């Protein structure tokens, strides 16, 4: 009984990590780009939503209507103007550029929002729960996050496998040069992909902002977990990312049940162990 509760909580926590990681997985998968600013972008989304809520008096969910288009545009322009120029065999430029971006976002937020922690409120839903049996209750909001992660993945799946741009995503990610030979404007494809990734990041950011408080410096923590989820699952495999998130969530939940001190460490150790056994994750993308 006790273990069932632990596993259930681990699963739900996995949903959070998966949601955080999907945007990263997307960027990784299509462009082979290590986005070190990923965590800070999630936090940025939280702040943008916060500002929208403050200024326009909308609810956090409604603020998505502004955050998401804004983030799509941000991703599109960022890729077109900056990141496209860094792609290539050399791993360093994209890494440094996104690292720089991370610093800029963090400190930019510090300058404009101060270091106070913020939170978005969704009211009752946040604390509502569903009782399963006598002593297990699961929160409604964690279920919402888990469902969002799944729906996001399904939507991306539909985008990737059901649309023309999805075909271009896959072709470009397989072989950008050959894709250009097919008349595909790969730079635009990359820009759209990053735009889509930032939309997912926007969703994750707003949901995170409702779930916990956040401040300008809470990005890097999110980044490492997201990375671990992506890498455990295998680069560029979105369902793998879900599995990676759940693996991490379970590892932490089980570790925490053994000893709360061990919770975060357990996640990292499982990550390292998986890397040793399967250096390319569970579902690596086929080499070609």
């Amino acid at each position, binding site marked *: 009984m006790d273990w069932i509760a632990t596993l259930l909580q681990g699963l739900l926590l996995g949903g959070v990590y998966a949601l955080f990681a999907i945007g990263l997985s997307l960027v990784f998968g299509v462009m082979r780009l290590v986005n070190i600013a990923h965590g800070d972008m999630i936090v940025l989304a939280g702040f943008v939503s916060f500002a929208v809520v403050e200024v326009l008096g909308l609810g956090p969910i409604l603020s998505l209507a502004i955050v998401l288009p804004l983030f799509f545009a941000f991703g599109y322009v960022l890729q077109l103007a900056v990141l496209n120029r860094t792609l290539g065999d050399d791993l360093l430029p994209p890494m440094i550029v996104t690292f720089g971006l991370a610093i800029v976002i963090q400190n930019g937020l510090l300058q404009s929002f101060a270091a106070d*922690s913020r*939170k978005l409120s969704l009211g009752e839903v946040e*604390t509502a729960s569903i009782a399963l049996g006598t002593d297990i209750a699961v929160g409604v909001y964690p279920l919402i996050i888990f469902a969002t992660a799944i729906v996001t993945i399904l939507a991306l799946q539909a985008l990737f496998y059901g649309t023309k741009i999805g075909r271009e995503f896959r072709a470009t990610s397989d072989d950008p040069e050959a894709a250009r030979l097919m008349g595909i404007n790969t730079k635009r494809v990359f820009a759209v992909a990053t735009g889509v990734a930032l939309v997912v990041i926007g969703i994750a950011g707003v949901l995170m902002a409702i779930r916990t408080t956040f401040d300008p410096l809470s990005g890097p923590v999110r980044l490492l977990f997201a990375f671990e989820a992506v890498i455990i699952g295998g680069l560029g495999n979105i369902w793998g990312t879900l599995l990676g998130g759940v693996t991490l*969530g379970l590892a932490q939940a089980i570790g925490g049940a053994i000893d*709360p001190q061990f*919770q975060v460490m357990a996640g990292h150790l499982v990550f390292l162990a998986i890397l040793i056994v399967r250096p390319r994750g569970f579902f690596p993308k086929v080499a070609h």
Partner: protein
Amino acid sequence: QNNSLKIGFVQPETGPLAEVASGNAFVLENLRQALAGGLQVDGGQTRNVEIVVRDSQSNSNRASEVAADLILGEEVDIMCAAIHPLTVTPVADQCELNGVPLISSITPWETQFYGRGATDDAPFSYQLHQFWGFGEITNTFIDIWNQLDTNKVVGGLWPNNPDGVGFAQGFTPILEERGFTVIDPGRYQDLTDDFSAIIRMFLENEVEIVTGVVLPPDWTTFWTQAAQQGLSVKAATTAAALAFPGTAEQLGPLAQNHSFDLFWHPSFPFESSVTGQSAADYAAAFEEQTGRQWIQPIGTVHSVFETAIDALKRSGGGDWEATREAMFATNLNTIQGPIVAGSGPVPNAVITPLTGAQWRQSDGPFDFEAVIVSNIAADGVDAGGTVQATA
């Protein structure tokens, strides 16, 4: 010599602790106005007073660096430091090493004394710390809980950071001595995403009281997850997490009746030795100038400067040794209460009043009001109400 007296001040202006320091701009401005005409030191001379402020960025590396800079570069006459061991401890280490007198506050005195390796036989030579300790806070928390009808099972939320380690060590023995059962799940990591394991432990042991020293984000996570997972307690009494109206507002209705340590309140019956303002006037001035609700550190930080100024006044700012001696001879009434060097449990600490308070939703200009519900460790301070159970 006619140049100014320099007071160094290190505080976490930015970073995660910035909220605690967010009233300090007012504190400093208020003091600078009062000192605009200079300070008449013993011996009749009038000296300008300059307060040189450095930001620790809530980072102990940075705190150490800026303290050294204040000592070596600015050559301050006395140092002040406040808010959290992350800022205070490194500054204290630098001061002790370089022989610079230091007035510090807003972190339990034990972390400054035993936590930095002093013993009753070998105290520090350059630090005067004015704040409460674990004795005061445990008494206050117990006083709060005793006003309720509970099973006396306390769940502890003590993170693995300087505060958490100190509180866990300080609280547990005293609570057990006083007939409470302590459920301590161990030191969790700051910014944990998931408190399920801890919550289940609390549920299993039928915890009715939750206490701890929790970062605001972690409290929010814990408290919402506790509600989701069916943990409801009669008292939630924390240090740090919800000690500020801003965080209470963010948590909204969930903050109602949350109890916490309150070490300064406008109703404190004290006044400033520098400006002459009463606590109530001082808080009013704050609200008027900033448009924000008063926060408790403004009184405490003000009083740190009172002590420093008093020491400089008596030493004449001659050299560090003279100021140190003056500092250890302090006997001053401040806006935080009386500061009498040598009156504390150890030579380096002076105990200041501590009350317990609860947040109550209010119709007034601000969402929440802090109502004092325990004054057991605060001589001369009146209570404003009695404890009510959390939802």
